[in-house]
């Protein structure tokens, strides 16, 4: 078993016996369930009026995608809160030395921490997807669009998890690490807001923004350029976190 997978499994086990990840998951799912029921109620009231239109949006557009979009927004806060302890928490508890002294290199440590965080987020995505999928018993869902939205969410979660691990490597104070990660996430979310107000929608600044690449997935469009953006963002953050871990070894 690779060291990264070993660390990921170990971190998932530690999450499973801790209150914090369960509390965050419970709060997130409760919020999503409430939003799901509100959206469903709204759709049921609107359905008779939509019935006469040929290209009217369906239950996937009006119930499923908004729920998943809400989860994407929650991830901006949730993943930093969960990932803040990845490295900062180990440093604070003086247990990072266990990993640094184990003879496994810095990259597997970072990869393991990231993988655990990402798998946790994937579990949440699966549970969030189960809500709209439960409607399949009584209506027809656009499964392709749902799959695209799920893929977009998974890619976004991977990139945010990598940013959270990097932020966690910058401090030995988990709260400070979470604040850095939230700030980075918000920056990436609104970085092109000014340009959009000016009517610029196709510049470099737009390319850097998270929503530019997430929204197509919610419309059912899977483009390699969008997937590549999330992959590059994750790779960059993981590379920086690995360098930072090496620097911690040098700086003391």
């Amino acid at each position: 078993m690779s060291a990264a997978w070993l660390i990921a499994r170990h971190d998932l086990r530690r999450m499973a016996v801790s209150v914090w990840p369960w509390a965050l998951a419970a709060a997130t799912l409760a919020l999503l369930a409430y939003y799901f029921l509100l959206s469903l109620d709204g759709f049921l009231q609107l359905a008779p009026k939509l019935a006469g239109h040929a290209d009217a949006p369906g239950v996937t557009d009006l119930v499923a995608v908004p729920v998943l979009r809400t989860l994407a927004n929650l991830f901006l806060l949730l993943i930093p809160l969960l990932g803040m302890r990845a490295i900062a928490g180990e440093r604070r508890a003086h247990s990072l030395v266990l990993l640094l002294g184990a003879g496994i290199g810095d990259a597997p440590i970072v990869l393991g921490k990231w993988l655990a965080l990402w798998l946790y987020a994937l579990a949440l995505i699966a549970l969030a997807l189960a809500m709209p999928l439960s409607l399949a018993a009584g209506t027809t869902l656009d499964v392709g669009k749902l799959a695209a939205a799920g893929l977009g969410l998974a890619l976004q979660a991977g990139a945010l998890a990598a940013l959270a691990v990097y932020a966690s490597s910058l401090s030995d104070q988990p709260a400070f690490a979470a604040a850095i990660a939230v700030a980075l996430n918000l920056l990436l979310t609104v970085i092109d807001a000014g340009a959009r107000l000016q009517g610029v929608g196709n510049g470099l600044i737009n390319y850097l923004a998270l929503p530019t690449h997430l929204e197509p997935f919610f419309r059912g469009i899977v483009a390699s350029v969008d997937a590549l953006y999330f992959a590059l963002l994750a790779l960059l953050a993981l590379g920086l976190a690995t360098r930072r871990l090496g620097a911690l070894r040098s700086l003391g």
Partner: protein
Amino acid sequence: MPAADRPVKAASTGDLAPRRARGNNRGPVTEPAAAPPLLQLHAVSRSLAGRAVLCELALELRRGEVLGLLGVNGAGKSTTLRVIAGVLAPDSGSVRLDGTDLYDAPERARRGIGYLPERAPLHAELSVSEYLGFCARLRGLDRAAARTAVAREIARCDLGEVQRRLVGQLSKGFQQRVGLAQALLHAPALVVLDEPASGLDPVQAVRMRELVRGLREQQGVILSTHQLAEAQAACDRVAILHGGRLCHIGAPDADLEARFLRIAAGAAEAA
């Protein structure tokens, strides 16, 4: 400061020669004269926050030997051990384990080291056996070997009665023993212990000393301590550090306390 207590550049080979049966069968295990030292520090220097913490430190340790690092607070004991354990890179100089430079082949070399830092690196939310199982797998043992190693160290460190309890709920003494067990799981050639008896009651401290003595049957041990009595009881040789420099190295003889106090007083005067 008497000449004998001035900083020494390197441990003399006379000090390093295997000594046999100094009483109570405490002499280091004899090994062939041609064998390289298990651990060799050559001119290791390290600064932290702009302050020189280690200055051209040179030390050697042979297999089957227990070397104690003595010194007042800030002498550089913990930094020396962190450098040896591979968790803090030196600014200059080299650390060799069994002839291999620790920082040239860090991952392989670290597998040969078991390290217990001043604060044991524990995961409080897991049970003792779960935590030790993870540590064993992390050091490259397969599932079956890890199970065997965990059982062995639980027995050796007297952790049987608490193996199912959460690490965070244990007393300081038990936590220290769990920390020692994690350092021994992979049967490392070199065991590095930073203040292993810190926070232990007298009975636990004696038990820890016995454990350390038992390790030298197969391993080399380097430990730091504030306590002269502990150094005299557990170590074959003692190195006294002050200001990051090696001031004395030799057997823990009856003159050790006077020498230690002289070095500390001399350094205080110089400061």
